[in-house]
C-alpha cells in the first residue's frame, strides 16, 4: 500500500508556501533564514517523492547535494548574520535598511 504521490507533492507545496510566507512575515534574520531552509527541504521532499515515482535514484542524489549546499549556505549565512550583528547590534531585518531607493 502506497501513499499517493499527490499527497507528498501537496505537502511539499504547503511547506514551500509556509517557507515563503514566513520569509515575508518574520522579522528575525535567523528565522527568515530558517524559512529558507524550510523551502529547500520542501523541495527535497518533492525530489524524493518523484524519485520514488519514477524509480530513479537521481532524484535522491539530488537531495544529498541540496542538503550539502544548504549546509554551506547555512554556514555562510550565519557568518553574514554575525557580521551584521557586530556592525549593528540587531537581528531585526527591518532595521537593515541603510540603503534605499
Amino acid at each position, binding site marked *: *500500500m*502506497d501513499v*499517493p504521490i499527490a499527497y507528498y507533492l501537496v505537502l511539499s507545496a504547503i511547506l514551500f508556501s509556509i517557507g515563503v510566507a514566513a520569509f515575508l512575515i518574520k522579522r528575525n534574520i535567523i528565522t527568515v533564514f530558517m524559512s529558507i531552509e524550510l523551502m529547500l527541504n520542501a523541495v527535497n521532499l518533492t525530489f524524493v517523492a518523484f524519485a520514488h515515482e519514477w524509480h530513479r535514484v537521481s532524484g535522491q542524489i539530488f537531495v544529498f547535494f541540496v542538503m*550539502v549546499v544548504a*549546509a*554551506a549556505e547555512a*554556514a555562510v549565512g*550565519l*557568518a553574514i548574520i*554575525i557580521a551584521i550583528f557586530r556592525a549593528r547590534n540587531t537581528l531585526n531585518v527591518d532595521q537593515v535598511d541603510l540603503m534605499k531607493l
Partner: protein
Amino acid sequence: MHSQNYFWNYLPLMMQIIVAVGLGCSMVTMSWLIGRHRKSSVKLAAYECGVPAEGDARGRFSVRFYMVAMLFILFDVEAVFMLPWAVIYRRLPAITGSRMFGFWEMLVYLGFVLVGFFYIWKKGILDWAQDKGDL
C-alpha cells in the same frame, strides 16, 4: 490502490494519536481539577534543580559556539557523499572501468575536505584560547 483502503490502513495510527493526546490532556485537566491551588511567590518561581534561577535564559553566547557549530555542520554534512559511494563501491570497478578509480576518487574528495580543515586550523578558528575579537 484505493483511497478508502488507504485511509483505513492508518486507522490504528489515528487511534493511537487520539489516545495519546487524550491521555495527556486528561492528566493535566485532572490534576488541575483535583489539586489545590495555592499561589505564593515561592511556588511561582522557576524551578531550577532546587537552586534559584539566575540571569536570563536567552543570554548571549560567545560567537565561538556558532563558529564551531557551523564548522561541525559543514564537515558533518560532507560525509553524506560517502554514503552513495559506499553503496556502489563494489560495483565501481565495473562502472568506471578501472579497479582503483573509485577509491582514489574518494581520496581526492577527502583531500579537499582536509584542505578546508587545514585552512580553518591555520586561521586559528579552532584555537579556543586565542582571543580573536574581530571574528
